[in-house]
């Protein structure tokens, strides 16, 4: 009798528990449906509310996106064109260096990249650097050495601003890394000055119009004109050629490790992918006995 009772109880409790389980499932379903509906409604509302306000920045204020140019160092395993770096330095020296500094590039880094040792030494010696004071404590000057950094055109930021109507020409050492669009942007900016600003564009005094510059109004005027410099390798110095060369040079200045980096990357890819493939094989080999084992159960005969 007692046994029967307890059995019924157990049965009941089981029935009860099944019931709650069913309840729980239906609740979860409802909660899920409700959640989806709420999310959908919230998203719709946010989209609608977003459409009610106007975007403050127009495309023109962001600046025109530069086209993607086919740089000779674009590819995964492509180095810089060093002849282009050499011409680009020429352009920097003769054109850009009038306003822009190149603080983070030392003369010595050019050696074996675009210039020979004696060429760079000669260029460095043309500049004067502060030396140790003499015995009387008077400041002295000395000619530049390979270890010196390329000097900028201005003593300090104030002097730079004063000479450029309040605008500060940015340092060009890392400019390619510091701008969206990198090389493409620099090239587009240098070559993108129209003869006249489009109708309706009002520019502040002393500003120039360039569609690639965010806001369109840039303090730097167009500087590159055909045959502005004369390349020592005889390449015709068109505006586009100079812009391309100087951009390549600036990209090198920003990423002097570029060529070695791509070579190391190639090595890493080869070694690591082979290691991966071999490790897959070794894993399969080690697991073979475990994966191919068979467990047989023969019920004992009575």
């Amino acid at each position, binding site marked *: 009798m007692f046994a029967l009772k307890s059995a019924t109880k157990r049965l009941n409790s089981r029935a009860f528990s099944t019931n709650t389980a069913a309840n729980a499932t239906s609740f979860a379903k409802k909660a899920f449906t409700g959640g989806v509906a709420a999310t959908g409604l919230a998203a719709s509302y946010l989209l609608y509310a977003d459409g009610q306000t106007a975007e403050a920045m127009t495309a023109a204020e962001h600046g025109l996106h530069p086209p993607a140019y086919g740089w000779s160092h674009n590819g995964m395993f492509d180095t810089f064109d060093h002849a282009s770096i050499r011409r680009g330095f020429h352009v920097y020296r003769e054109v850009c260096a009038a306003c822009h500094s190149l603080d983070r590039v*030392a003369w010595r880094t050019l050696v074996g990249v675009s210039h020979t040792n004696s060429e760079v030494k000669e260029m460095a010696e043309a500049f004067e650097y502060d030396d*140790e004071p003499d015995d009387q404590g008077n400041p002295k000057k000395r000619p530049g050495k390979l270890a010196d950094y390329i000097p900028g055109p201005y003593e300090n930021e104030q002097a730079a601003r004063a000479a450029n109507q309040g605008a500060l020409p940015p340092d060009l050492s890392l400019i390619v890394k510091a701008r969206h669009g990198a090389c493409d942007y620099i090239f587009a900016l240098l070559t993108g000055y129209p003869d006249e600003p489009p109708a309706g564009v009002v520019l502040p005094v002393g500003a120039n119009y360039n569609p690639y510059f965010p806001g369109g109004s840039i303090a730097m005027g167009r500087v590159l004109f055909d045959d502005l410099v004369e390349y020592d390798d005889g390449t015709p110095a068109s505006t586009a050629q100079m812009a391309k060369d100087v951009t390549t040079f600036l990209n090198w200045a920003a990423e002097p490790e570029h060529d070695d980096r791509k070579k190391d990357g190639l090595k890493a890819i080869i070694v690591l992918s*082979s*290691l991966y493939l071999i490790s897959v094989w*070794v894993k399969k*080999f080690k697991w*073979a*006995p475990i994966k191919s084992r068979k467990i*047989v159960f023969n019920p004992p005969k009575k």
Partner: protein
Amino acid sequence: MASLALRSIARNSLVSRALGSQARLLSSSTLTKKSNYNTPDFGDYIKPNGANEKSRAFTYFMVGSFGLLSTAGAKSTVEAFLQTMSASADVLAMAKVEVKLAAIPEGKNVIVKWQGKPVFIRHRTSEEIAEANAVDISSLRDPQQDADRAKNPEWLVMLGICTHLGCVPIGESGDFGGWFCPCHGSHYDISGRIRKGPAPLNLEVPEYEFADPETLIVG
């Protein structure tokens, strides 16, 4: 290891096939022999006869290449870390000083800064060279031939730091016609060797070389 396991399975299954389904062999121990375990048929996994040596060679080749590539990778990683401890390019570029010798007339001293230390360069006259060579080495506190101190006898290059307490000696003075340290009165001769006073050693000669007859590179 695993290849051995495979091999034992292979052998066992051959035996088991030979003995039919009655064989109860996975190992040769008597305990398992007594068990009623029926070894299943592993025929599908067994390599055809004779392929063992070849497959083992391949296995060792794969495992060996795995180790080889890992070793090479580990080696370059360690090397990369060690390389961070060596001098960087800008330090190396500053570590040498170039001196144009044409600007130094005979019988004159020039002091250049090298790694923050003064370096004495003297263009010695032939009398001075003769004088430096005439000294009896055995009488010196720190015996050294003049030829050991100057690669080119015309040019004496040494660190201008008194070996006593690190003052900078004064040139063309002292009792021996060389350098004199005003701090505690050490006298150095025309080869920079200590002759009198408290200093224990000769003036130190830094590493230097003549890139060409007109250019001296210290460092």
